[in-house]
């Protein structure tokens, strides 16, 4: 994906998640983003470049906002699944991350994004 495509998709996703630019900026800052609101606004409009690290943080912020939006619309099942499978999986994953042996918690996941361009 070219950088331009990426910024356009992020802005589309932002609209889809019903976020203003400043809402998204706040989520991005909460996740460790270091750009100011002007940087983010400019990037979403394809005017200002953002380094890949900051792009990743912004992408994660907009993705989580989309998840929240869809979760708000989703319909619960009549009988919820017993236990909290997500929490258990998270615990296992963290065990893997902190394990002394070289952890391979990523089997089957997409490869981590490449380093800075």
């Amino acid at each position: 994906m070219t950088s331009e495509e990426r910024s356009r998709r992020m802005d589309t996703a932002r609209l889809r998640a019903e976020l203003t630019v400043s809402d998204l900026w706040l989520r991005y800052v909460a996740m460790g983003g270091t750009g100011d609101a002007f940087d983010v606004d400019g990037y979403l409009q394809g005017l200002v470049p953002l380094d890949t690290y900051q792009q990743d943080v912004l992408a994660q912020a907009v993705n989580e906002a989309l998840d929240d939006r869809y979760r708000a619309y989703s319909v619960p099942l009549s009988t919820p699944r017993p236990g909290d499978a997500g929490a258990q999986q998270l615990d296992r994953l963290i065990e893997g991350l902190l394990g002394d042996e070289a952890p391979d918690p990523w089997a089957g996941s997409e490869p981590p994004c490449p380093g800075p361009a």
Partner: protein
Amino acid sequence: MTDPPPHADDVPPVPTHDPGLPPPVDVASALTQMAGLVLSRETVDTALELVTSLAATTTAGTLGAAVTVVDEHGKRSKAASNAAAERSDALQYEFDEGPCLTAWRTQEVVRIDDTTTDGRWPRWNEAASQLGVRSVLSTPLLMREESIGAMKVYCERPHNYGPHDEHVMRLLAAQAAILLANSQSLQEARRLSRQLTEALASRDAVAQATGVLLARGAASAQDAFATLAAAARRTGSPVLDVARALVAAVAVRNTAPPAPDNPGP
């Protein structure tokens, strides 16, 4: 205005979300200053009551006066001078019709000379006349181009209000609008302060988790973030939850007694 300047203690303490993290920075006072000279809500309410009682006494024959506020929280009344005014307002919100809602929507002064003959808001007119309200004068509250509510006076006699009362109400409504806009910017400052405080707490957790991963051999902060994001994606949880769980797990490991097969000195 001789109100004292706002103090930080006007702002209620913001609860922290994770007792394991350092207390978040209090940005409330800085934001309050950013929002300009902001009156406390108590001061605004008192001043609004003064304006409505002024409206009630300067428009002859008035039974009650109140202010309707319309914002993202809905429609409600403030500073009602008596129960009849409050009840008449509540009926407008219930029916979603009435002179004050029309004044708010059209940004124009609305006058009802007699609720028993006026046909514009049939449901409300009928209910209001049963409450003893016969004539109404309602003025929109305008802040720049935006309508933020209406101020109204009610009277138990028909044909009570004329052009002079309209003039007085316009002047008083301008004052009420300034007061209301002031209290809205205070609420905005509080909301922003709460959001920023939460964002900072979240950012602390992500930064700590990034540090943990760096200490465990992550190549860079970007690499550490990618690890957190991948874990979040795989478990369907937010990066913040992963970060907090990771920091908590490290703390548990550091305080746990050494394992028997790995004896300490």
